[in-house]
């Protein structure tokens, strides 16, 4: 496909442009298309993609919502690495004036840069990722010591924004379609350590099946790429430890 230039742009002031390759297509197939985008101050990858849709090619599809790293909708592959694009400054990823942007890995593509995140959320639920209440709205809120070692373990993974970046980074997910993946397993670990959760044994069962935590090879890409500095790898190790213990416990 032919590169599109920025002649129509009102923003084109500085004359410096970025060489941007963007993946276009659907689950049926596609390829990279090049665009020239004006380089501007404080520009994020999401801004670059938005500029292309606003001024160069009205048919470009992508997804975002919050613009500030809270909703986890804008993740894409940037130069082959999964990233939140609303918080990725162009300067951080630019290589010789060029950058390549593709849809998030390990998920089906809907169109262009928008991936179908349903498999990711289905696995979240399969891993037992929904809280099971041990009290009702008519009961007082149970006191919980925030410094308690087990609570600290639960709190460690609580700030996950389910952006699927770890899921895209993990090669085990790529090779094993049943694998629940780092985010879902981390959620399971958080709930396992949540004193208020009522279904601890169900979690151990949910993460011990064919797609469970035992498929993880501790390759650590999840932890390396998580934009919120969370550590799913260690959470998964925790699940392995607890399931291993239960393996002996339940045999007895």
């Amino acid at each position: 496909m032919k590169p599109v230039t920025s002649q129509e742009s009102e923003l084109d002031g500085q004359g410096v442009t970025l060489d941007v390759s963007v993946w276009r297509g659907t689950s049926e197939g596609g390829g990279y298309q090049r665009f020239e985008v004006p380089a501007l101050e404080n520009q994020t990858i999401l801004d670059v993609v938005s500029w292309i849709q606003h001024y160069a090619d009205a048919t470009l599809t992508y997804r975002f919502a919050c613009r500030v790293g809270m909703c986890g909708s804008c993740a894409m592959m940037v130069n082959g690495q999964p990233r939140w694009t609303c918080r990725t400054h162009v300067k951080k990823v630019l290589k010789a004036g060029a950058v390549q942007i593709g849809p998030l890995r390990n998920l089906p593509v809907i169109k262009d840069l928008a991936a179908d995140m349903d498999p990711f959320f289905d696995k979240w639920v399969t891993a037992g990722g929904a809280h099971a209440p041990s009290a009702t709205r008519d009961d007082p809120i149970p006191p919980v010591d925030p410094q308690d070692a087990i609570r600290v373990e639960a709190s460690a993974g609580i700030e996950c924004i389910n952006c699927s970046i770890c899921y895209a980074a993990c090669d085990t997910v790529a090779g094993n379609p049943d694998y629940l993946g780092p985010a879902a397993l981390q959620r399971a670990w958080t709930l396992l350590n949540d004193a208020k959760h009522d279904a601890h044994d169900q979690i151990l069962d949910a993460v011990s099946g064919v797609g469970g935590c035992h498929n993880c090879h501790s390759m650590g890409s999840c932890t390396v790429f998580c934009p919120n500095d969370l550590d799913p790898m260690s959470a998964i190790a925790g699940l392995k430890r607890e399931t291993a213990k239960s393996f002996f416990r339940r045999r007895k």
Partner: protein
Amino acid sequence: MKPARAHPLWLAFVLHRVSGLALALFLPLHFWVLSYALTAPEKLNQFLSFAEQPIVKIAEFGLIFLLAVHVFGGLRLMAMEWLPWSAPQKSLAAGAVGIAVLISGTFFLQVV
């Protein structure tokens, strides 16, 4: 491979997988050679002297090295999974294993 994944833990995984695979492919060969002890001991001896050749020695060294890598890699993995270590302890342990592999490697190199 994409630079995206070239970080220590990922490399450790690749090393573990490659070594495991190589060992699994070598093992039947090893068993096959040993079984000559029964049917034709002289072939085994032949093989052993064949194994004196430098090229074969290097290959053997490679295998033993892979075994060491795999064993220590596996122990590292299990320690990571089962021992409740903090992050700095993990890096320390990984470093220690790395050094151990290095030392044992050179040791093997001398004897073989």
